[in-house]
């Protein structure tokens, strides 16, 4: 089997205004079939993608935010959210979706996927990757 690489998907756009957020999510789900070490980063306006309580009926678009909750089932367990980006936008983690995965090493205990990281920590995470995909 080929060597496992570290993939980071960088999300910097708000949902709905442009198609970047939806495209990123689709690429992550497709990429999940390849058994790589996958992480997602949400920074700048990308943090808005994870806002909870999205209801799109009145704007006539598909609400794709429930799909983020399925990421755990696709072995996507590391979702980094940049603290400074949240703060600048008047948000806290309470305003975000609660995303979890089941840890197979600990009797499938449910664990939080979202990790709040500082800008400096995210810079280090980016630095450690083999492949970075930007949306």
């Amino acid at each position: 089997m080929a060597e496992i690489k570290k993939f980071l998907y960088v999300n910097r756009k708000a949902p709905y205004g442009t198609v970047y957020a939806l495209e990123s999510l689709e690429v992550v789900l497709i990429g999940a079939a390849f058994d790589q070490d996958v992480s997602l980063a949400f920074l700048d306006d990308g943090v808005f993608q994870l806002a909870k309580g999205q209801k799109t009926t009145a704007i006539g678009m598909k609400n794709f935010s429930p799909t983020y909750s399925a990421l755990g089932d696709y072995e996507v367990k590391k979702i980094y959210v940049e603290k400074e980006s949240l703060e600048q936008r008047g948000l806290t983690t309470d305003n975000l979706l609660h995303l979890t995965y089941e840890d197979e090493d600990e009797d499938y205990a449910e664990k939080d996927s979202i990790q709040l990281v500082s800008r400096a920590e995210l810079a280090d995470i980016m630095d450690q990757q083999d492949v970075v995909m930007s949306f």
Partner: protein
Amino acid sequence: MAMLHTVNKSPFERNSFDSCLSHAKDGSSVLLIEDGIYAVIKGSQAMSRILDAPGVSFYVLGPDLQARGISQDHVIDGVTVVDYGGFVDLVTRHDSVQSWL
């Protein structure tokens, strides 16, 4: 000439909102739509721009707030939430409309 300004870009990604407010005269109105609605979140960095423009009336489109998961109690006090009908009323109540894209 009372003008209605609309802004549809995030204030954190583009300068449309900033530029709009730099040109909006007292007595005019600003309606935030699509990604522009992110300017009305209480406690955000864009909040001071709204508070610093007391002569301008601010409106935000409710359906775009709901779609993006921003609840009404998260909206800066003094900003009026309108629906699509309210959008039409605003257009008819003003002499002209300028879109900040």
